[in-house]
């Protein structure tokens, strides 16, 4: 229950925050503030037909964009690893969250079988992506790039300034990797014949809270890394 409510609130809150920030970043700098007018405009913007995901072409557009983004950022065969990561992750997140929110028994049956299979794919692809992309987000590399990336960052209406986007990209990347590591570790731990019932409970909770962290970091990554 606590997990269900917390995860639901956090995911919705982060999504609203990211989309609201993205909405504000589209406005002239002097109008970027938290106000009733801006909020009304934001609601109108987010619920407008133009951005609606009820349109099939919107999904097509997103898919095309994602494929293009993958090709741009991953060279050669590694793009397939990225696609595998995305596909497996989408299923893992959707199935996991859906059952956590709506099915008291939790994940079971054929969705569980697919979840396990997708989990293996996710672990492998995440390891490869981590291996080839870790160097990009090393701290010293961030310092070298900050000057060129001051503009177009993550707008904070309270501080009335933009955060350098590369910092948020790094944050999303490292949290996503760390959460993925914990997800894999908790999965493996629960399958090994070394841990008793309280440890199993611990692994279960570690798995689901890591999953939530992973989803939140993925949301952030989509906003700051993928969507221009």
């Amino acid at each position, binding site marked *: 229950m606590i997990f269900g409510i917390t995860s639901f609130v956090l995911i919705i809150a982060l999504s609203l925050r990211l989309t609201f920030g993205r909405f504000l970043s589209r406005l002239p700098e002097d109008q970027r503030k938290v106000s009733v007018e801006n909020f009304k405009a934001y609601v109108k913007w987010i619920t407008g037909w133009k951005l609606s995901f009820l349109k099939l072409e919107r999904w097509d557009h997103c898919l095309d964009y994602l494929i293009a983004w993958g090709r741009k950022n991953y060279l050669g065969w590694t793009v397939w690893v990225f696609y595998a990561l995305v596909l497996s992750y989408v299923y893992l997140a959707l199935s996991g969250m859906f059952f956590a929110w709506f099915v008291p028994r939790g994940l079971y049956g054929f969705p569980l079988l697919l979840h396990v299979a997708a989990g293996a794919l996710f*672990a492998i692809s995440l390891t490869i992506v981590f291996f080839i992309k870790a160097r990009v987000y090393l701290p010293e590399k961030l310092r070298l790039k900050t000057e060129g990336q001051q503009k177009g960052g993550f707008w904070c209406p309270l501080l009335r300034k933009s955060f350098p986007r590369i910092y948020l990209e790094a944050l999303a990347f490292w949290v996503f990797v760390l959460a993925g590591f914990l997800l894999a*570790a908790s999965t493996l731990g629960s399958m090994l014949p*070394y841990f008793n019932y309280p440890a*199993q409970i611990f692994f279960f909770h570690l798995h689901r809270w890591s999953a939530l962290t992973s989803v939140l970091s993925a949301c952030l990554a989509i906003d700051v890394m993928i969507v221009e």
Partner: protein
Amino acid sequence: MRRQNTDRQEIRGLTLKSIWQAGLLLAGLAIFVFITFSVSRLLEARSQAGSMQEIKLRAEEKKEWSGSQLSPLHRIPLNDEFNQKIVPAAPEALPFSTRYSCEPCHSYSTISQGTHFNYRNRPAVDRRTEPWFLVDDRAGVQLPVSFQKHPGFWSPEQLGLSDWKFVTLFARNLSGGGPGEPAEDGHTPDSRWNVSGRLEINCLGCHHRSPLQDHSEWVKQVMRENFRWAATAASGLGEVVGMASRLPSTWSIADGPNPDDREWAVVPQVRYNRNFFDSRNNAVLELPRPEDDRCLACHSVVPRQAKSRAGVDRDVHLLAGLKCVDCHRNDLSHEMVRGFEGERLTRSSLNSYDFTCAGCHLGQKPEKGGKGFAGKLGAPRPAHRGIPKVHFERLACTVCHSGLLPEKETQAVYTSRANRLGIFGKAIWTLEYPLIMEPVFVREADKKLYPERMMWPAFWAELRDGEPVPVDSQEILAAAPEVFNLKENVASLLNALIPLAEEGFYPAVIISEYLFEPDVDGGLKARVLEKSPLAGKSARSKFLLVQLKNGEVRPLLPGFDPDDPPPGIEDKILNVLQNLKPLARGRQPVFLVGKYVYGINDGYLDKAERSGEQAPGPEICFQEGEEFQPFLSDFQLRNLEALGPGPEVLTEEQVTLVLKKMAETNPGRKFAYVASGFVFSLDKNGKLTAGEHRAARAVTWPLAHNVRPAQQALGKNGCTDCHSPNSKIFFGKIEASSPLQTSHRDSRLQADLMKTGPLFQFLFGFTFLVRPAFKLVLAACLLVMGLLLLAVIIRLTGRVSGISGDSSDPESRS
């Protein structure tokens, strides 16, 4: 003034003296009426001794428990059902009454509400227990009977079983009380309570620590309808002779013994063993908490495949030194803790959760923040390493830990109550029916899996608006005795041939590859012959009469030259033909040899020449007119061959014949036979058809014992104990067993009862074949990611601490 008053009183005829006298008179009258009324009530109570009405005796208002852990030696007067102290030396002493002997210290009415006595009014929240079984193995009936209202269980009321009938059927495993002590208005015309007495709660049956306490004696006495004597006889305090079942229904205890009949209708009498009484005629009894043997008399289960007691493992808790009553406790309410999760006790002061598996082994769920400690009664705390938590949410502990280990097929078991185990005597008491299987894994209403026992009801029924309503098997047996008595008839025929057998041998018959021989109960037992002379299709409809001795098989019918018969042979033939005469149903038994026919004429052996072709060998036949009919009819051969040595007692042909017979004798009514998960009835063409109905479905009830050692729990060898494509847990076959030999049998997989779906379980089990590889992959991924993360952390730490960094940085040098 005073004078005036006195005058008035005199005028009215009233004086103070007369008022005083009248008052005294009235008071005396009231005392007289009160005493008379009280005495008459006491006398009435005595005359109605044993009724359900609570009688306040000289009960001492005592605390239920003194605080001592000791069980006191009981030096107590034993009272009879008239609440009179028993004097063991008295020539016509009555049996003791637990109601009047135990009541002064222990409230009988409270105890009578206990689990073992109060069948009718158990709480509705109660979990299913093993039902009673109405069994008639001749008619192929095995019907679950229970006071519990669960689908598939028939209540005694539905079957028309009065308390009397119920008790006479099942008293062997009743502890008395409940239906054994019906109220006055509960007496039915078929009952003989006034003769048998009431079946009071047999306190000593559980509590009496004495080598003389004998469950078999209890059974013997209740089968003789010696209800009021049964507890005394079973306790060993006295011997009981006589049978109430042979007494006329007009007899009552007040009539006393019948001096005119000391052979047949002997009135039950007690001869007390005076060694168990002190000089003041108080009985000296040791009555501690019940020993395991007392419980196991009614609550033991053994696999049928076990050849001896040595081959059966005991419950691990007993091996650890616990007793049944250590977990299955009760206070004075005698509401037993059954020990399953979710049990709600309504009268007991005990907390049922403390005595569940988790209650002892885990304590008050410390994982969930509960208080308390594990290890009650020394229970080890299980680690359950590597078992995902879903198992603890969706499975009862007993799934992995209790009952027989699952095999490819469910295994047949005997249970004490159903199959009459634990009754010893000359007769063999164990019944083959009902056929009970275990383990089956059933998902119950709480969504958890439980290991259970299962049986398929079998009964003859009348179809009323399509609903099968059980019919008394006696009615069916009476309608078509020749059909049901197949084995008995053949056994009688074979026994009639005994004069022809050599010394020490006895007759038998070979049909197909089976050898049939008469058993001690007048039936036939069959076994498969390794090498049968009649094996194969060409030998169909043939039989061979043989004689047996210690496994040696010889031909029974002697071959001899009828023109020169050996001495004594004709006497043997005469004896056999005389034996067969009453079994021939109007036909003439004859012995054919060569061209001669031996028959009986006016009690003498008659040898006549036979017309037509002569018999190839000696043969026993039945002659009807000019026709010679074989010793065993085609019907007998066909059905015996079909039944063989299997547990079934009926064939589809027999069922068809019985249903036709019932339809003929009861026009307008439709009958059916329910067995093996189907309802068998005749279609318009008179052919037997099998249909489905919920009344034919199998009934199950959870099992809890025997608990296996942890090393033998499912999952001990890993996940593949259960999760594999050929798992016995999920893909074990459950096939209906029933008294009917038929191809229509309810058949399913364990996964069907679990409601998990066999396809999913197959695929899920399949994943466990690749799971080691999956674990390796995950471990490799974790290793790589871990090393990378470690490298980053080391690098970051080095930079923060200044240990590592850009050597050209002038700040780092300074």
